[in-house]
């Protein structure tokens, strides 16, 4: 009979293996490392895991990570209620926040259109989005999905279904990389930079 790890350890390896980017070998190494930690470390870790599961829920409105106290974005009193920024994932929100360039509200779709991966509009939080726009006081909706094929298609789809609602639709600009010369921009970026060039002659 082949000797195997005890069942509990095997089960830990199996759980870790399901994490993104982790194969069987890495899962095994992580499990053995965990086993060698001082007593109490794993208890603390499992406590944190349970806490995260119980306390962190996606905000029913914007999709960002909310706690028992609620959503830090939706409940903030100082945000502009007229601005809504649509992103693909809740993780896209923090990079935008860090820029400080946007102080409105967000809506995370939870993905993007990808018919070949069987992701259609019904899998994204588009119904919730329509409800928010219908009942909210938004005046401008910024489409901040990615600039690749799937992100563009998602933005086009949303633009079409939001056309009838009474909001201004904008799309994040694409163009010259900041701090770079012309030679560092790839050609499609440059192409779009020309299409979306700004006027400097009067109202710049």
């Amino acid at each position: 009979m082949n000797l195997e790890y005890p069942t509990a350890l095997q089960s830990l390896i199996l759980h870790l293996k399901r994490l993104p980017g982790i194969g069987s070998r890495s899962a095994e190494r992580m499990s053995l490392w965990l086993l060698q930690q001082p007593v109490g470390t794993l208890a603390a870790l499992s406590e944190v895991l349970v806490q995260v599961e119980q306390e962190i829920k996606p905000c029913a409105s914007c999709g960002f990570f909310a706690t028992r106290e609620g959503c830090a974005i939706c409940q903030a009193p100082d945000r502009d209620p007229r601005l809504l920024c649509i992103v693909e994932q809740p993780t896209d929100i923090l990079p935008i926040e860090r820029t400080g360039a946007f102080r409105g509200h967000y809506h995370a779709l939870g993905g993007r259109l990808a018919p070949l991966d069987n992701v259609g509009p019904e899998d994204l939080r588009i119904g919730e989005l329509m409800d928010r726009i219908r009942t909210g006081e938004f005046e401008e909706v910024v489409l901040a999905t990615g600039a690749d094929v799937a992100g563009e298609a998602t933005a086009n789809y949303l633009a079409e279904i939001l056309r009838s609602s009474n909001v201004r639709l904008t799309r994040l600009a694409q163009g010259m990389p900041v701090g770079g010369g012309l030679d560092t921009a790839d050609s499609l970026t440059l192409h779009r930079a020309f299409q979306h060039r700004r006027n400097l002659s009067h109202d710049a």
Partner: protein
Amino acid sequence: MLTHLKLRHLRCFEVAACQPGNGTTVFLGENAQGKTSILEAVCVAMRLQSPRTANLADLIRFGEKEFAVSATLAGQELLFGYSGNRRRMTIDSETMRSSGDYLRQSALVVWMSNDDMALVRGGSEGRRRFLDFLGSQLHPPYRPALRDYERALRARNFLLKRDAYPRWDQIDAYTRVLAEHAAILTRLRRELVARLEPFAAEVQAEVSGRAEPLGLVYEAAGGDRLEEVLAGFRDEESRKRGTAAGPHRDDFGITLHGMAASRFASEGQQRTTALALKIGQARLFLAESRRPPLLLLDDIFGELDPGRRNALMAALPVHSQKLITTTHLDWLRDHLQPESVYEVTRGMVAPGT
């Protein structure tokens, strides 16, 4: 100049290495010994694509998990490794983040083979692949535009097929993306065909030895204004469940004396025209990049009569490095003295005599 080539686990080769000379290098061997795979490896190392297959996984040796090819070009070592889901591109051991960065430092390549006749006689797909191979080498925007176009096209065609009644709201989300990349491709292809034409015509006259005016006419399938064009194809797309226009339907016509070469030219003329397109490509590359392209000639001489053979050898760019595969060497010695000869036997490459 390509000075060293090394392949590992590629097609029939376990490992193989050679040092091409600066003029002509000949790979000599019977059929099915691996000669073509050596040229293919050079093409992949230079251009990250194979003229024989769209799927690089085909190049992985049976039973292995990945292949690698390294080539020393003007003193720089280019290395490309591929394992089905991962690719590694380094230049002098420095990892290249994008294929664009890699390709910029590589050489331009012209591939000639017996199959070139299909450019004249075969379907439009071969001609589109030819344009794609030229375009991706000459214009950095070509490759990303083609890749994104194909991505959008796959999604759009899938949506057209998926539902009992096409969901146009979803389909049109892709139409606009498709149209943006189609416009870029169409413009680049139109330019490409127009610039290739004089070079190909020049070669046609030289090789045939008489006035045989060759014309190339780009036939765009609506790529300039694809959104508008597709709007007019709603019914057809609903019936046929596929994208009805766009660069994936492009073609270019080849004429001799103003008449379609595929139908009205003799077999000999067609053969000359196929050569003219490829040598024209070499001359275009030389003119546009000011660097002689690397010529990979896969067993093209067997089918040519001595007259065309001579004319072909005379028409090839003089300063281009040439890698040639052939089954016998005798006739070649009449035309040129190869710097190096390698014998290829059952997946082994050895210096020949």
